């Protein structure tokens, strides 16, 4: 379809023409020969669009910045954006499309574990490389995925250690009913047991659930010292509203959240959340100069008053690491890029100096923050150094390791 040039992303082409045309002829979308193509695959529609669109924006910002400075190895980066529509099957389908049809060099994308798990076999089969930006439950190391989001030992366990250090003895675990909360909590439970602490309860609510009355009753019945919250998405709003309505304030029942960043805090209402804790590897309030420059650049591109979150930074950083790896490998071949990426020196980023470990996960610092009334987090604690990523928790999954 060379007569539809790259720029003609018009309505007519995409809507009217494409369904019929693509039935008969393979669509060989034509980027200019000197461009290098990369895929950006996030949910632009569906329930996950809330979170993923901003990661897509951050990724595109990085691509734009790199292009302004001359691109990668003299080539401009052309991004092919695809919509995973919050469905695992669609993610798998679009990943295949990006690799087979658009012939991209690499793909940045994914958010839920379900989407990553669905894409993994596609990337392995077609031998391409996926850069995954979100904190997850570990227990996975594919040679075809670069895991820049936190492993459990870089987010939830440091937060647990912090809570233990603070003297909290009783824990209540509440999460959405999916894989990350259940696996993360399995690990935390092993550690609670190991440290001879008390677990007063564990509850899962379906994704999107809005009724927490029974959960709150159970929390009160157990009388925990701290609540570990792995609820995801909209349900958090209901949880905190109902917690506040029941008179449970941050003072009596501190909550440590693992899926609430600056954006989610704004949607829930900082008033309700004030004083509660969150654990991440990046907060918008990090004071380093690179972060300030990033926030400014993001606001210049997407409008002021934009909030920046941990997964967005990972999505942004991934592009720069990919660029550095390509330049080190002097090749766009996924296999060579992957090998170069784990031997790079530390790169300076808005989240500090970072590099990838041989297991293709990221060395990064853990932070515990406390939400202030203005919707930003005050950083209470940090791990002092970059933590080595451990895909398998030694206590919960003894003997399991990544075979490099």
């Amino acid at each position, binding site marked *: 379809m060379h007569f539809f040039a790259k720029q003609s992303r018009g309505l007519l082409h995409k809507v009217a023409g494409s369904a019929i045309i693509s039935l008969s002829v*393979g669509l060989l979308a034509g980027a200019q020969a000197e461009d290098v193509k990369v895929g950006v695959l996030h949910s632009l*529609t569906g329930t996950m669009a809330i979170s993923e669109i901003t990661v897509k924006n951050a990724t595109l910002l990085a691509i734009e910045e790199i292009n302004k400075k001359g691109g990668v190895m003299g080539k401009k980066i052309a991004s092919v954006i695809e919509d995973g529509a919050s469905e695992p099957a669609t993610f798998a389908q679009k990943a295949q499309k990006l690799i087979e049809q658009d012939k991209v060099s690499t793909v940045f994308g994914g958010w839920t574990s379900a989407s990553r*798990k669905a894409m993994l076999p596609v990337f392995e089969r077609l031998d391409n490389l996926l850069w995954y930006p979100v904190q997850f439950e570990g227990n996975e190391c594919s040679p075809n995925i670069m895991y820049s989001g936190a492993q459990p030992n870089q987010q939830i366990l440091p937060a647990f250690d912090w809570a233990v250090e603070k003297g909290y003895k009783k824990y209540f675990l509440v999460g959405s009913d999916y894989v990350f909360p259940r696996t993360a909590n399995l690990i935390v439970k092993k550690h609670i047991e190991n440290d001879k602490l008390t677990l007063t309860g564990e509850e899962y609510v379906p994704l999107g659930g809005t009724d927490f009355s029974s959960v709150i009753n159970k929390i009160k019945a157990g009388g925990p010292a701290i609540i570990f919250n792995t609820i995801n998405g909209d349900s958090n709003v209901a949880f905190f509203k109902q917690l506040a309505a029941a008179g449970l304030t941050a003072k009596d029942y501190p909550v440590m959240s693992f899926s609430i960043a600056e954006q989610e805090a704004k949607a829930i209402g900082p008033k309700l959340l004030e004083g509660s804790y969150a654990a991440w590897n990046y907060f918008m309030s990090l004071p380093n100069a690179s972060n300030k420059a990033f926030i400014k650049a993001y606001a210049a591109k997407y409008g002021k008053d934009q909030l920046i979150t941990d997964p967005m930074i990972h999505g942004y950083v991934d592009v720069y690491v990919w660029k550095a790896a390509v330049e080190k490998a002097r090749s766009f071949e996924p296999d060579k890029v992957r090998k170069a990426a784990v031997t790079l020196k530390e790169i300076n980023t808005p989240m500090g100096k970072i590099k990838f470990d041989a297991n293709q996960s990221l060395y990064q610092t853990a932070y515990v923050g406390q939400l202030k009334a203005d919707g930003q987090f005050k950083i209470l604690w940090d791990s002092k150094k970059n933590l080595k990523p451990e895909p398998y928790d030694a206590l919960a999954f003894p003997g399991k390791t990544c075979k490099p």
Partner: protein
Amino acid sequence: MKKFTLPFMAALFLVLAAAPAILDGYNLSLLGRFLALALVTLGLVWCWGKGGVLSLGQGVFFGLGGYAIAMHLKLMGLPAGEIPDFMMWNGMSDLPAWWAPFKSPIFAVAMVFVIPGIASFIMANLLFRRRITGVYVSLITQAVALAFATLLTSQQGVTGGFNGLTNFTTLFGANYGTPEMQKTLYWVTVGFVALTFVVGILLERTYFGKTLLAIRDGENRSRYLGYDPVPYKVFAFTLAGILAGVAGALFTLHVGVISPAMVGVVPSIEMVVWAAIGGRESLMGAILGTVLINFAKDRISTALPDAWLYIMGVLFMLVVLFPPQSWKLPRLFKASKKPTFKEVHGD
């Protein structure tokens, strides 16, 4: 109309047979998975278009078929004595007893038909013997779809939870996901669709097919005339269930993943729309409707993600306000349909 439909159908299947020579790998795999979905729609033609029973729970049977084959694939890729990885992450140490038989390929393939068949047969009997009709059936099946998706998600240790089942390595002794396998899978899918279509055309002309329409158009009237509508409706519903199960299994093989996201309330409703767009009682329309709408979704949701929901929403309203089966000009996709008793005489 028949004289248009048959040549058209022959031409279409010729095009489908030639597709691997024309399409690139990606578009061929899309066509394959959409044809698999067309089996669900063909089932809905029987159950809804001709039987008058609108099931909003086809995702359940789709999922049962998909999970049956996915369990087999999950077990085949394992070294001896190991359990699937997700079970290990959930702290389990042994394979549940009901998983074990799925190791056998024959058993698993049989279950693709048997489990959705039994499930839909039981459900149909429960519904129709109690004379539950119309919107009640729709809303109850919808509740079942919600319950099933929630159940799958909450029993993560044995179902893979929200992630579902994925990362398959072998299928019946061959490497999973090679281009040759994709092509074979495509042929198998086309074969199933063609078979279902031809059997459907024959079934339309039988006594059964005509009685089903009569029951749809006047259930009580049929009862007065001495027909017991229950077995007819049970048959149509079970047929739709089995077809959805086969579709689920084929779709899972094409895509390489089955998860609760594909079995719940929303996907079940989408399936109904494919049938509605195809004209709900036309077998040909079912196939074309499913393939076209899914190709459109693939392209439009990429180019204009914001617009897709509007387009989808408007489409829902249009196919209801101006149902394709009532169009006057393009009679190609229209099943042979005499005016119903209701239309001629009023109710």
